[in-house]
C-alpha cells in the first residue's frame, strides 16, 4: 500500500526554506453551533472510538483521518485528511470571529454539523457556511453576498459540503419523519449529502452502511477537487464561476 509522504517536515521541525506548503494538505472544516457534537463526531471519524468525556472546544482542535481514496479499485491511494473542528457560536463577539477566520484559509471541504433536536442549530448553519466561505474568496473577486443566503451560490460552490445531523437517537419514533423531511430540505439548499447519526454509537458509520458510503464518497470528492482538477487557482470563493474548468470524474 503506497502512502503519501510528507517530506516537508523532518520529524517535528519544519525544515528551513521549505515550509509545510498548503499544497500538501487536505483540509476539511467541521462547523456548527456549540454543543451539537462536533468534537465527538471528529473523534469518531478519526479514532473509530466514542469520545468519553466531551468538553467545550476552545479555539480549534485538529484530528487526522486516514482515508483510502478509491478504495477497492486498482488506483487506491491513502490520504491523510485533516479535520479542523472550530469551536464557538455564530453569535460570538466579532473579536472571536476575526480570530476564528485564521482557520478558514485554504479549505478543501466543509462538514456542517447540526443537532437534530435543536432547530436553531440547523438554521445557524447558513450563517456558518457564509462565515467560512466568504473568508475564502480570492482578493480580486467581488463579494456578492451581503450576509444573506442565496441558493445559487451553493449550487456552484467549489467547496464540497456534507451535512451531518447528530443526536439521532434522542428523537422519538413518531417525530422522525418530520425531522428527516426538514433535513432533506436543508441538504437540497446546501447541495450536499446528508448523514444522520448518533456520535456515541459507532454502528452508524460501520463499514457497508449507506452512511459510510456517503462519507467515503464525500472524502473522495474532496480529494479529487484538491488534487485532480486541472484548475490552477484552487481556492476560489463564490463568485468566480467563469474561471474554472471542471473535470467531472464519475465513478460508481
Amino acid at each position, binding site marked *: 500500500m503506497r*502512502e503519501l509522504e*510528507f517530506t516537508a*517536515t523532518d520529524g*517535528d521541525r*519544519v525544515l528551513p526554506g521549505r515550509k*509545510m506548503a498548503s499544497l500538501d*494538505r487536505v483540509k476539511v472544516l467541521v462547523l456548527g*453551533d*456549540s*454543543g451539537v457534537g462536533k468534537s465527538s463526531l471528529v473523534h469518531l471519524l*478519526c479514532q473509530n472510538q466514542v469520545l468519553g468525556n466531551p468538553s*467545550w472546544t*476552545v*479555539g*480549534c*482542535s*485538529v*484530528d*487526522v*483521518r*486516514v482515508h483510502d481514496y478509491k478504495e477497492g479499485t486498482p488506483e487506491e491511494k491513502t490520504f*491523510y485528511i*485533516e479535520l*479542523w473542528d472550530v469551536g464557538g*457560536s*455564530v*453569535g460570538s*463577539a*466579532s*473579536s*472571536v470571529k*476575526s*480570530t476564528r477566520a*485564521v*482557520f478558514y484559509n485554504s479549505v478543501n471541504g466543509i462538514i456542517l454539523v447540526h*443537532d437534530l433536536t*435543536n*432547530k*436553531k442549530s440547523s438554521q*445557524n448553519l447558513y450563517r456558518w457556511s457564509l462565515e467560512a466561505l466568504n473568508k475564502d474568496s480570492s482578493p480580486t473577486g467581488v463579494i456578492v453576498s451581503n450576509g444573506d443566503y442565496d441558493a445559487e451560490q451553493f449550487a456552484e460552490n467549489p467547496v464540497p459540503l456534507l451535512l451531518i445531523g447528530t443526536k439521532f437517537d434522542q428523537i422519538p419514533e413518531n417525530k422522525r419523519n418530520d425531522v428527516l423531511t426538514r433535513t432533506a430540505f436543508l441538504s437540497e439548499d446546501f447541495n450536499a449529502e446528508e448523514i444522520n447519526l448518533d456520535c456515541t454509537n459507532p454502528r452508524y458509520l460501520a463499514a457497508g452502511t449507506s452512511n459510510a458510503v456517503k462519507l467515503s464518497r464525500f472524502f473522495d470528492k474532496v480529494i479529487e477537487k484538491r488534487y485532480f482538477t486541472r484548475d490552477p487557482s484552487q481556492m476560489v470563493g463564490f463568485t468566480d464561476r467563469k474561471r474554472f474548468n471542471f473535470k467531472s470524474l464519475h465513478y460508481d
Partner: protein
Amino acid sequence: MFTSQVLFFGFGWLFFMRQLFKDYEVRQYVVQVVFSVTFAFSCTMFELIIFEILGALSSSSRYFHWKLNLYVILLVLIFVVPFYIGYFVVSNIRLLQRQKLLFACVVWFTFMYFFWKLGDPFPILSPKHGILSIEQLISRVGVIGVTLMALLSGFAKRWAFSDITCGAYIRYDILALERRLLQTMDMIVSKKKRIAMTRRQMYQRGEDQNKQTGFWGMIKSVTSSSTGSENLSLIQQEVDALEELSRQLFLETVDLQATKERIEYSKTFQGKYFNFLGYFFSIYCVWKIFMATINIVFDRVGKTDPVTRGIEITVNYLGIQFDVKFWSQHISFILVGIIIVTSIRGLLITLTKFFYAISSSKSSNVIVLVLAQIMGMYFVSSVLLMRMSMPLEYRSIVTEVLGELQFNFYHRWFDVIFLVSALSSILFLYLAHKQAPEKHMTL
C-alpha cells in the same frame, strides 16, 4: 393597573425571546414564563412608586396593590425560582434522572436553610415578623448585588479607554500571534499524522501477527508492539502540550482583537461620547465612595434626601423663593424616574452580556432562572434604597407597607459593602492594568 402589568409581562417575554435566547431553542416554556413574571412584577413595583409620587389612584388601592405585589414577588423569589433552578440543575446531571422531583426538593430545602441562617448574625429584627425577615434577607443579598454591579459598570468604562497607549503596535502583535497559532496547529497536525501512520502500521502488523498462532507468535507480537506504543504515548504527550499551547494562543489573540476593536471604536464619535460619559460616571462613583466613607466615619445616617436638601440650599443660600411643595414633587419624580430607567436598562444590558459569556445550550435554562432571581432581588432592594432619595411624605407608604424594617441598618450596610467592593475593584483593576502592558512587551 393590571393592563400595565400585562404590558410589562409582554415586554419581558419579548426581551427574553429577542435578546437572551437568540441562539437557543426554547424548549421549556416554564422558564420563559417565570422570567417574564419576575420582570413584570418588579416593574410594577417601580410603577407604584411613581404613582405614589404623582398621587395617582386612591391611597387605599395603592396600598392594596403594594401588598399584593410584594407577596407575589416574595413568593416567586423564594419558592418558585429556586425550586426550578434546583430542578434544572438536577436534570442536567445524568445520574439523578430518576427522582428529579425529590432531589429538587432537597436542593430547595438546603437553599431555605442557608437563607435563614444568613439572617442570624445580623441585628435584624423581631422574630414576630416571620415573613418579613425573609424579605430582609432578600434585600440584603440584593444590596450586595446592587453595589457590585454599579461599581463594575462604572469602573469598566473608565478602564476600557485607558489602554490607548499600546495601540500603535497592536496590529503587528495580532499578526505575530496568528502566525504562531497556525504554526502550532501545523505541528499538531504533523504529529497526529505520525500517530495515525504508526497506529495503522501496528494494526496491520497486528493482523499479520494474528495469523501466526502459538506461543512464539504471541511473544513476538508483544515485544514488537511495545516499542511502537511507547513511541505513541510520547508523541501523544507532545500533542497534548501543543494543544494546550494552541488554546492559550487562541485566547490571547481574541483578547488582542478585542482590544484593537475597542481602540478603533473609541476613535469614532460614538466612542468619544461614551468615553466622556465614562469619565462622568467615574467621577460620580468617586463622589459616592467619598460620601460612603464620610457616612461611616462620622456615623451619620442620611435623614434628608438630596431633593429636599437641594431645595433647602437654593432657598436659603440663593434666596430664591418658589413653591416648595410643587417643585419637590416634580423634581423627585424626575429623579426617581431617571434612577429607575437607568438601573433597569443597565441591569438588562449587564445580564445580556453575562448570559452570552457563560451560557451553553445545556445550561441556558438554569442561567436564565439565576438571572431572574438576581433581577428580582435587585429590584426589591432598589425599592428599599430609593426610600432614601425620596422626600419624607412619600416615604410613608413604603414604610407602612414594608413594616418596621431597620432602614438605617440597610443604608449603613450598603455603604460598607459599597466601600469594600469599590476598594477591591480598584485594587483589582490596578493589578490587571499593570500586568497588561508587560504582556505586550514580551510578544
